[in-house]
């Protein structure tokens, strides 16, 4: 007969439960540099966190938003072992241009481009890729989505250990989002502005990209 279980502590106290490792003793997740020292300095750990969901709010492509992640993508592909170094780009606004990516050092034989038919399919594909455990990073371009799906993506990213990046238009700025990091990219007064809207473990606010 199963005993009456009242709390997690009761379960852990049971001799039949084996604890593999103390959660607090787990090694810190790797962090990938953004390639811009001003931005790295503002992020907890000094770079993009893996196993988490990052949201980038941007209206028009062309402000260098992919460029923010390319150094990290190259680094995590190089560092990955075994079957893990796959990159999955889901519903990009245009065709990813192979010569440019090769120029930046991306391993193109480990890049998947996915063209789903609708937003739900795109979210499903992102969840599959994030939780598969073989992807170093999953980039997803979306027009709109609901909070429930974002939560699923966040859980999938945590389970699969991948870096999840979601690009959405600026109008979603005031919606709640489970992403651990939210950025806003805009063009004002002749230059690109980057603002951290939400940083788990850090301080939100504008980032001066400068010339770095």
């Amino acid at each position, binding site marked *: 007969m199963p005993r009456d279980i009242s709390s997690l502590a009761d379960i852990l106290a049971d001799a039949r439960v084996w604890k593999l490792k103390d959660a607090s003793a787990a090694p810190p997740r790797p962090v990938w540099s953004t390639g811009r020292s001003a931005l790295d300095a503002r992020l907890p750990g000094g770079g993009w966190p893996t196993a988490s969901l990052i949201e980038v709010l941007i209206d028009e492509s062309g402000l260098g938003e992919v460029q923010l992640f390319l150094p990290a993508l190259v680094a995590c592909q190089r560092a990955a072992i075994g079957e893990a170094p796959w990159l999955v780009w889901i519903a990009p606004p245009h*065709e*990813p*241009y192979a010569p440019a990516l*090769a120029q930046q050092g*991306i391993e193109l*034989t480990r*890049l998947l*481009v*996915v*063209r789903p038919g609708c937003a739900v399919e795109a979210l499903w594909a992102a969840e599959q890729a994030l939780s598969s455990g073989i992807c170093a990073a999953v980039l997803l371009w979306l027009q709109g989505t609901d909070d429930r799906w974002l939560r699923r993506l966040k859980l999938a990213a945590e389970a699969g250990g991948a870096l999840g990046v979601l690009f959405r238009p600026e109008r979603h700025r005031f919606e709640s989002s489970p992403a651990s990091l939210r950025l806003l990219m805009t063009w004002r007064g002749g230059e690109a502005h980057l603002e951290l809207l939400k940083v788990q473990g850090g301080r939100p606010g504008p980032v001066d990209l400068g010339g770095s």
Partner: protein
Amino acid sequence: MFPVAAAPRSRSVSKPATVPPLPTAPAVPEGRRTPRARPLWYAVVFPGLPDAELQRLALHARQFTSFVSLEMPDALLLEIRGSLKLFGPLTDLHARIDACWAQLAVRAQSATAPATLAALWFARAAHPADPADPADPAHRMVLDDPGQLSGRLASLSISCTRWDAARLHTLRAMGVVTLGDLLRLPRAGLARRLGPAAVLDLDMALGRRDGPRRAFVPRERFRERCDFESEIDSVAYLEKAALPLIGRCARFLRTRQAGVQALELKLRHRARPVTRVRLGLASITGERHRLFGVLAQKLTRLELPAPVRGIELVSGPLQALPADSFDAFTGLGRGGSRDTAAQLVERLRARLGEQAVYGVCPLPEHRPEAAWQKVREFQFSRTLSGAGMPVSEDRPRPVWLLHEPVPLPAPPATLEEGPERIESGWWDGRGVARDYYVAREAHGERLWIFQERHTARWYVHGVFA
């Protein structure tokens, strides 16, 4: 299952008529020759057999040996040296194979000899065995001693060589009727009159030269039907019903050490054409859970047009499994349930369609639109070079390329970099002559634009995202 094929025997006569030197002494010193069993060939000729039948008979022949060669149009060669241990003495084995043809009620003439062509020629010369008395020994030539070959061949008519009519006519005009007459003639003269191919044939018949043969590999497929007692109109039940079929298919593949890359599930309805569900796999596999995973993904997306009365599972052609697919510990080190890249691609393709998942690769080409292409096949097993692709271009290239260049109404306000002249492709009719610039648009987008040199018009071709 997938024997290494020997090179087929060439009958080419295009070379000048030189006599191949007769191998008198072994090329390798006697002491260092690898001891290898001499092959022994059972030949069977089916006079007047329809073309398509030969393959069916070859399948029957495979119960006696794994090496069966189709001798078009009407004969089979079986290598039976290896079968003697299992089936007993040679005469018994020969009689057993003959009995197989008698049972199938096909007219067959057979012979056994230690050389491919000798066996075939003996079989052609033999009288058809009497189906009523398959053990009748008078009509069978069963020979295992290569020393006796030339003596026994001598009495055969030259027509059993199946050489073309002109050659046989020449020989008859020379007064040559039997192979014995032919073997008495000098080799050099024979080669001049009949061509070197004929001399090669004689050497092969006498066992002085090998006549390599290609083993027959049956084109097998898995095909199994299942009819339901009552009609099924729910996809969930259909999935359950297909599970045993997938299991049997996986077992079928495992016993053959083979895999498939495509499967088809046919759903039969009462008064409608069959619904076909095509299942593509990203890599060759025979694993039950992968086959079923793809099937389940496809079925959840399926809208049944009508209730299903029965299903049939048909596999694509069987293919050899890649050598690394037997690793029993795959996945153990990475938490068990993690899957492979091939499975991820499969799952995505099963739901989104074959075309929806692809890779990109750069091409050595100056025209930007031709400098890349989509890739549908992924090399999952290849280990990474670590260095990436060789970078051929150090000029700025945008992350996004537009499908088609989009005309700009006015020349851009700010040009940040350029011009870079790209002039290429005049030879294939899609030539370009453009000056490329990096420009900043009013809303801040960094664009890759060009001016066509002939028309001086401006276009956007890429976006620096």
